[in-house]
């Protein structure tokens, strides 16, 4: 197998010049290319015509990133695992981008007469009492969201949590980093949780109303 080097040997070879470095890069590329098909089974079939091209592009980009970030490797895992983490991030980011590239955030959220493009209605199959309870709870949730969250938080939360758009893709459209959007949404969840607790609503109670 290509990855018989210890962590120190990988680092040493990649920091050297000439044949040692070339061999290490070649072996590392083989590690990446071998692993990606297992990583991407839920995303893209290895028999898809675009698969080989994606793997090649990701392998190249990964090697560049690895070389420029060698000093950040802290040795808490196998070097190859650290490298494959980078490759997986690159590959899935690209696949997500392609999957969602035709979806506009504004169009997703703009459906006339709805709450940011959702119906959020009671279950039509439920009996009248249950439907009323559900409607009241949904109205309460909707009010909480509208009153507690900033408009940015509302849009992001509905896009991610109700429409299922990946957070990374929402972040891209809102011109934010992934991290910044996670923080925004975390703050939103905290506000809703606190408000629900103040009003004596537990999420379990609300969930139970929809199980009937």
């Amino acid at each position, binding site marked *: 197998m290509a990855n018989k080097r210890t962590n120190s040997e990988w680092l040493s070879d990649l920091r050297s010049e000439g044949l040692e470095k070339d061999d290490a890069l070649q072996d590392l590329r083989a590690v990446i290319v071998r692993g990606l098909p297992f990583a991407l089974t839920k995303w893209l079939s290895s028999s898809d015509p675009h698969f080989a091209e994606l793997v090649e592009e990701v392998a190249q980009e990964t090697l560049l990133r690895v070389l420029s970030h060698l000093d950040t490797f802290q040795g808490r895992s196998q070097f190859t695992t650290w490298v494959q*983490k980078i490759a997986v991030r690159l590959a*899935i980011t690209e696949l997500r981008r392609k999957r969602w590239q035709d979806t506009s955030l504004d169009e997703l959220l703009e459906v006339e007469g709805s709450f940011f493009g959702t*119906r959020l209605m009671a279950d039509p199959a439920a009996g009248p009492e249950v439907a009323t309870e559900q409607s009241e709870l949904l109205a309460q*949730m909707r009010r909480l969201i509208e009153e507690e969250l900033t408009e940015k938080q509302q849009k992001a939360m509905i896009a991610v*949590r109700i429409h299922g758009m990946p957070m990374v893709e929402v972040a891209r459209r809102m011109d934010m980093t992934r991290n910044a959007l996670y923080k925004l949404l975390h703050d939103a969840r905290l506000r809703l*949780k606190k408000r629900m607790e103040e009003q004596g609503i537990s999420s379990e109670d609300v969930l139970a109303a*929809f199980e009937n």
Partner: protein
Amino acid sequence: MQQSDGMLKKLLHHIGKTEAHELECDEIFELLDEYSEAAARGQITEQFLPLVQQHLEQCQCCCEEYEALLSILKSESAQLN
């Protein structure tokens, strides 16, 4: 729509599980290789990096990447056996 209702239920569940302190995506990325190796060895326990687990439950993007990396590691140990 059924899909909206299902998603709302998930949101409610995640609101309930929200903690005051949560790790951010960048921090998770730093820890992901170590965490994935532990998971591949079957060594994830409640005590081991619970904050990572908590974030993965809240963040589908990070969770997808974790599962993908885990798949690679499991394939490697399958090859060795």
